[in-house]
């Protein structure tokens, strides 16, 4: 069936279309720096978009929850075994991606008789010099690194616009409150920019007011303003409340 190169390429192309179609409604998740670390945020109908992977690594996700869960557990296993067998200083995202999860995802994607992963993943990491970096991992195993922040979304137009804005914004100089506010603003503006591509825009919140009303804002930090080994913490309802009030 796939003995001719053309057939195989056609199958891969179809697979890309299939996965992209499945991820189309995936809501944006943004990861940006702020004065004391890194912020990951996104709105979700069901909680379960943002997770802690290791002491200095946070994960944002969109896609099928079962696939997100499987990859999340794989990352947790790899990170904790490496941290135990060597040192927590040897647990870095670049190694986890390059030598661990990305090749496995590529292989999965190209084995056209297997169900593909329906996910896009976003990572934030604070290194031991307290510098943040951001990574984006696609369902086909392709990954990229960003210094100023990154976004994932099911809507390409939306994510391209938000990514451009992130690159132009000096998030690293903002306080947590300002960074959260700015990230929310980009989320809302991104919705407007991406709306022509979305056929179901009337079904989903497109403004912050609607999003706060119907969904939950999930946000977490990797904060260097702690003496703890693990930098991850969830942004509290008290920290989110001013954004909610301002959006009304």
């Amino acid at each position, binding site marked *: 069936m796939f003995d001719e190169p053309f057939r195989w390429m056609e199958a891969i192309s179809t697979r890309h279309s299939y996965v992209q179609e499945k991820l189309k409604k995936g809501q944006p998740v943004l990861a940006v720096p702020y004065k004391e670390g890194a912020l990951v945020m996104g709105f979700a109908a069901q909680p379960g978009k943002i*997770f*802690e*992977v*290791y002491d200095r690594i946070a994960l944002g996700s969109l896609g099928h929850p079962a696939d997100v869960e499987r990859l999340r*557990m794989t990352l*947790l*296993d790899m990170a*904790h*075994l490496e*941290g*135990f*067998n060597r040192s927590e200083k040897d647990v870095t995202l670049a190694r986890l991606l390059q030598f661990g999860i990305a090749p496995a995802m590529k292989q999965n994607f190209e084995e056209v008789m297997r169900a593909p992963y329906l996910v896009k993943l976003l990572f934030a990491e604070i290194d031991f010099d307290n510098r943040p970096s951001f990574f984006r991992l696609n369902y086909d195993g392709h990954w990229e690194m960003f210094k100023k922040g990154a976004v994932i979304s099911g809507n390409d137009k939306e994510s391209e616009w938000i990514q451009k804005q992130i690159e132009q914004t000096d998030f690293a100089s903002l306080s947590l409150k300002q960074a959260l506010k700015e990230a929310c603003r980009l989320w809302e503006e991104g919705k407007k920019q991406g709306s022509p591509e979305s056929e179901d825009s009337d079904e989903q919140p497109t403004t912050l007011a609607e999003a706060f009303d119907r969904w939950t804002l999930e946000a977490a930090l990797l904060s260097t303003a702690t*003496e*703890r*080994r*693990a930098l991850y913490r969830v942004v509290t309802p008290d920290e989110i409340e001013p954004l909610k009030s301002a959006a009304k």
Partner: protein
Amino acid sequence: MSDKPENFSGPGDFIDLLERSGYSWPKAIAGLTAIDKASVPQGTTVMAFHFKDGVIVAGDRRATAGNAIMYERCDKVIPIDDFSLMAIAGVPATAFEMARILSHNFEYYRRSQLQPLSTEGKIRALSKLLKDNMGLAMQGVGAVSPIFASYDQREAKPYIYFYDILGAQFEIQTHTATGSGSPVIRGILEYEDLWGAQKLGQRTLKEAAQLAIRLLQTAGQFDSATGQGRPEDKIYPVIASITDQGYRFMPEEELAVLFQESTKRK
């Protein structure tokens, strides 16, 4: 083929993950009849007691092998997670490995199961490690007698547990101490709690830390395996506390001042 799901033996269990990756806890060494215990470094005196806002966990810094002082800067109070500390007396090699396993176990559980392990689960996890270590403990090469202290966020209550080398656990309401210098200070702690100026559980952090420093100095006076503080070399006991804010180790600058105050003769 088993009907059990892949992670049936313990979802979120790091020890299970370790074993699947090929790790195994060392068993008793077959054919080993006797060992010169003097060649194995040992930890010495640690203690924990309740104070007004939580628990204080403290330890001296000396590691010995028989009569030899091997190390004067040994940290015997080890953070396990944000709300738990383990104080060790016994063989450091075994104790440090247990602490590393426990720390990864609790963090792995919290991250994978999206909720912290219960205090009961934490207490049980250490007991299981000690039971698995029974072979080495009985051979005399890996005995560890730890104290585990944790703050239960759900109950808003601190806990102290003392363990014997085989894994039996005992909840401590007031104070406990273990290691070769512990008989000296257990009596004083009991006296202080019953007839001191204040019960231990009513003391402030500073008062509790001061008492811990004095107790360790006293233990060092009578037990050669317990190291006294040496301010001229910046060697101070480890003083840590656990409250509703998590654990905190007293920083060196703070300790230097408190040590001087605490050891000044009246």
